[in-house]
């Protein structure tokens, strides 16, 4: 799963070397925390959150396929919001 997210992110950012995906799990399921170069944050979120939404949709589908719940958190350098959505 981490492999999937890294693959996609490295394919869309300007600084693939700065992509970091941390995998952990909590009571909600598998959590993937994504960190990219500050100048790439906009790309990963997309206009109106379009890219972030697409990434979550893909990760959810792949998760269901593999029989688990997977959440994606994108660090945007701002204080954490509720990350569960």
């Amino acid at each position, binding site marked *: 799963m981490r*492999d*999937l997210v890294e*693959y*996609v992110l490295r*394919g*869309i*950012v300007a600084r693939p070397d700065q992509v970091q995906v941390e995998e952990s799990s909590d009571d909600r399921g598998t959590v993937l925390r994504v960190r990219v170069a500050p100048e790439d944050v906009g*790309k990963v979120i*997309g206009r109106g959150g*379009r*890219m972030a*939404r*697409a*990434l979550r*949709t*893909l990760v959810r*589908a*792949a998760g*269901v*396929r*593999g029989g688990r719940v997977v959440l994606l958190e994108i660090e945007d350098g701002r204080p954490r919001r509720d990350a569960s959505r």
Partner: protein
Amino acid sequence: MREVVASGRTVEEAIAAALERAGLTREEAEIHVLDEGSRGVFGLGAREARVRVVPRAQLPEEPPDARTLATATEIARTLVSKMGFSASVLAHATERGLFLDVQGEDLGLLIGRRGQGIEAVETVLSAMVHQATGSRAEVEVDIGGYRARRRQHVAELARRAARRAVAQGKAVHLPPMDARERRVAHTTLAGDPKVTTRSEGTGEARHVVVEPTGRAVPARPARRPPRRPQPQGRGA
């Protein structure tokens, strides 16, 4: 590509309608305001706003070359397989970019509810293909033939609605659809002189309305409240 003229209650609405019918984004279009419209006085003398949109500079994007197609195919294959699905990918060039056809067994999860998974795959793949090839070609995706089937279904719904509108002499409303599918409905009936089409409603409720030509509003709307979209407005 041709130009499209559409009308709406406000200039903004008219622009949105025209862009939808033309299948263009705001960046891709040149917008000319033909008539800013007028609210009139108590609905008297109210005119709808009219705009014309033309494709900007005909998008000088060349068709993707063989290498771009191969790169796109490879990226799509890898993505789908990393998601845990086994599928094959065929790519071909289109008028505005490239089309990636993902085929395989058991792709329901990838397609998603109402095709939302396809939407997501398309968003991600276009960004990846643009980044990898430096081209801005439009990337279109279909998975398991879902969109092709939907297109046929929507076209059939539209033709049926047209027959009913003509037979009963009244407007027929299609179910809500996204912009892509509404466009299929509009284009399916664009050549039918017996009906005109327009879109109505906002957000999730936006849908196509098919009505018999010449039925609706008279050319100079005297007393109608200004809400009513004009007939030539087939305004998306």
